[in-house]
């Protein structure tokens, strides 16, 4: 405590002693002197003061990025432990460890060392499970974070580039996950690699060459585990770290967004300063995340590699799936038919085999998803011609078309995702696997359309409800009979803070085509105007002050009646 006081004392002294001949601050204790020594050379207190006063708005949905960051730290820690014992060699050996069902079985050194980590290294299985669970949580929290950013419109100016960095982080986290998934060289991960090999080979003309370069010959070869290991522990984490630094740097530059509320606007940030409470909370939250992951790792098994056995290209186990984040690609592969009508999807043109039944589902949905994801901020900016800075978020209902687009994409993703578990859906719900596939194929096309329409309608309905509540107050459920026999329900007026939330948003109307500098409305601009019409035509305008005042007068009447009624009750 004393030392802390001294540290603060030194902060004051530093800001006061900018001239060399001013009396220097001498701390009383040893700790204080050391702190002062470091501070005079590094200027830590200045940095601390600047960062400590950074204001962060408080909302639970703002914490997924933190969850992602913390899971990444846990990944680095547990991963380092695993590297001490893992050997990424594909040389052949015979298992001599303590798991008897695999005794003397021929396997790669990589699988052997993964088994040893699981059964013969103290705490190894726990660390493996910590690593794998936090990997799943890492990608999940990155995804939820991106969904939050999308649906609240936080990607708008000035944050478009940070959105792109976030998208790159999502792809990198998937790459980190996939390279790690393949390392134990068990049957499951080998099957996963085999699918990747198949996808690569389906690329016309160059596919087989790329596959041979990657695997150092015909699949599976003897080098792939070592190469993936290097990517997994060196290149991909380094890139992720770089992107995290960029991402956080931009967060500091842009400041954090905030939800709409009284006193909040695009020129301020309402929240708590980083130091000391917010920093303590964030630090504590790291241990909460670590604790949750540790509990999962302690009580729930993940990737039981000993069940799958060593990789051998001949067997394929039922229930072979990738980890969840690659699931949508696997699902798309499962949904793709090999023959459409009479047309075989695999074709031989100019003496080359074009395996479209693998190439299309493996690359097209993911391609569309990520292209739209990366370009969406610019698409919306072009349609709306909105070039202003936004620091106040949209409630999802107040941007119905954007929310509907997001939900359409989300449902599309989920259909493919579900398809990756089609066999388990069939066995667990006692339905035919074929029917599951047919339904999901249909939903692949109509699911996003239904989601778009339903979401937009729901968003508009919620806006109407908000408008109704803003104008007429909350229904109390109290029914009052007037002297002339009429029954009315008493509406309680909202307080100003709650009402602000319901009326304080923008509801742009469609922007007609604008002539360019030559006074011409070109075709592109006409197209933009049409999209703007589509984007904004269905709108529920927030209640205006005039409408509110009118409704309020009406309210006063109700209240008078209300009080009159209660007086009457008293007089009885």
């Amino acid at each position, binding site marked *: 405590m004393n030392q802390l006081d001294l540290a603060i004392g030194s902060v004051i002294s530093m800001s006061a002693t900018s001239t060399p001949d001013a009396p220097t601050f001498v701390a009383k204790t040893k700790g204080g002197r050391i702190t002062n020594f470091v501070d005079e050379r590094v200027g830590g207190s200045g940095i601390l003061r600047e960062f400590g006063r950074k204001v962060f708005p408080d909302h639970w949905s703002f914490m997924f990025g933190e969850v992602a960051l913390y899971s990444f730290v846990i990944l680095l820690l547990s991963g380092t432990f695993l590297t001490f014992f893992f050997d990424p060699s594909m040389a052949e050996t015979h298992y001599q460890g303590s798991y008897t*069902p695999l005794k003397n*079985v021929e396997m790669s050194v990589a699988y052997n060392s993964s088994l040893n980590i699981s059964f013969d290294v103290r705490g190894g299985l726990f660390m493996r499970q910590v690593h794998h*669970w936090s990997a799943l949580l890492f990608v999940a929290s990155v995804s*939820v974070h991106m969904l939050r950013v999308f649906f609240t419109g936080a990607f708008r100016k000035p944050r478009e580039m940070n959105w792109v960095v976030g998208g790159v982080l999502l792809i990198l986290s998937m790459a980190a996950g996939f390279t790690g998934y393949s390392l134990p060289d068990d049957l499951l991960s080998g099957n996963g690699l085999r699918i990747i090999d198949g996808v690569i080979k389906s690329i016309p003309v160059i596919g087989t060459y790329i596959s041979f370069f990657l695997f150092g010959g015909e699949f599976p070869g003897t080098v792939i585990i070592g190469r993936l290991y290097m990517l997994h522990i060196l290149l991909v984490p380094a890139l992720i770290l770089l992107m995290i630094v960029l991402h956080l740097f931009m967060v500091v530059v842009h400041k954090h967004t905030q939800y709409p509320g009284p006193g909040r606007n695009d020129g301020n940030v309402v929240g708590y300063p980083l130091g000391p409470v917010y920093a303590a909370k964030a630090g504590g939250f790291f241990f909460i995340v670590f604790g949750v992951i540790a509990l999962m790792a302690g009580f729930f*098994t993940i990737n039981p590699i000993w069940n799958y056995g060593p990789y051998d290209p001949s067997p394929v186990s039922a229930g072979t799936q990738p980890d969840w984040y690659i699931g949508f690609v696997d699902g798309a592969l499962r949904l793709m038919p090999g023959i459409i009508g009479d047309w075989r999807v695999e074709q031989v043109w100019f003496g080359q085999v074009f395996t479209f039944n693998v190439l299309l589902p493996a690359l097209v949905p993911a391609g569309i998803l990520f292209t739209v994801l990366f370009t969406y901020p610019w698409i919306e900016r072009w349609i709306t011609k909105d070039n202003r800075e936004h620091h106040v978020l949209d409630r999802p209902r107040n941007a119905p078309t954007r929310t509907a687009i997001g939900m359409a994409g989300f449902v599309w993703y989920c259909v493919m995702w579900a398809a990756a578990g089609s066999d388990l859906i069939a066995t667990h719900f006692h339905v035919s696997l074929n029917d599951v596939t047919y339904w999901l194929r249909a939903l692949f096309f109509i699911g996003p359309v239904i989601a778009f329409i339903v979401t937009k309608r729901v968003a508009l309905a919620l806006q109407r409800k908000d408008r109704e509540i803003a104008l007429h107050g909350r229904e109390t459920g109290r029914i009052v009979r007037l002297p002339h026999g009429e029954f009315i329900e008493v509406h309680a007026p909202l307080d100003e803070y709650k009402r602000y939330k319901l009326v304080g948003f923008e509801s742009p109307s469609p922007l007609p085509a604008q002539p360019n500098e030559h006074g011409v409305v070109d075709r592109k601009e006409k197209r933009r105007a049409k999209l703007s019409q589509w984007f904004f035509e269905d709108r529920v305008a927030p209640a205006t002050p005039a409408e509110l005042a009118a409704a309020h007068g009406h309210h006063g009447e109700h209240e008078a009646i209300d009080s009159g009624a209660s007086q009457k009750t008293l007089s009885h």
Partner: protein
Amino acid sequence: MKALSQKRRHPLAAIALLLMGLLVTGGLYAVATTVNQAKATTSFSANDAEEGKKLFEANCATCHGMGASGSPAGPSLVGVGAAAVDFQVGTGRMPMQMNAPQAPKKPVQFNEEQTNQLAAYVASLGPGPSIPEAGVLDGQGDAAKGGELFRVNCAMCHNAAAAGGALTRGKFAPALGDVTSKHIYEAMVTGPQNMPVFSDANLSPEGKRDIITFLKQIEANGSPGGADLGSLGPVSEGLFVWIAGLGVIIAFTIWLTSRTS
């Protein structure tokens, strides 16, 4: 020898050779395919078959026909052997409750004695795989070898951890936990429903014993890493991290941010 070499250009030599070849191949094949029936150890009395016939006519003949010769509703059972009856009736799959893509396991309808009598009757109709002897069911084989055989021959339908899997059009490969060694063996030799037959020629009795040893051992081992989430692989893991993992984290975020507002 000289006489033989002199006659080698005889017009009938080729035919004789062909005949000899066919005889040898056919003979070897006959020996190989009857390996299954060679070990009929469970002996049935004539009375068993007699009682079995009565039970069969009352309970099974509707679909399988009188004399088990089959009908449009059910296949002929001549030559399926006692093992098939013991498996189908002993696991409750037969009598079938309703027409479905596959007869599921359900509470057993006949007691052990009746099952035996039915098996005796069907076995009396024609030679087929018999109920296995205890020696191959003892679970004392080589689990590691059994594991390899299981992954190569069984895992594509039954899942590497024997958790079961889906087949086409509503059919499925069941999970193998809680299945007795005898029934596993019988399923391998008779190939019930959609399962292929693993005759002794392509999977030796020792191999079958190893597979049973492996299955019993992984069942007894349990899950070293904690709750196994159904041994269903990454799908249940993904579901778990999204619902339980992220759910708990979200509960904490709400708790952390609600104190200040």
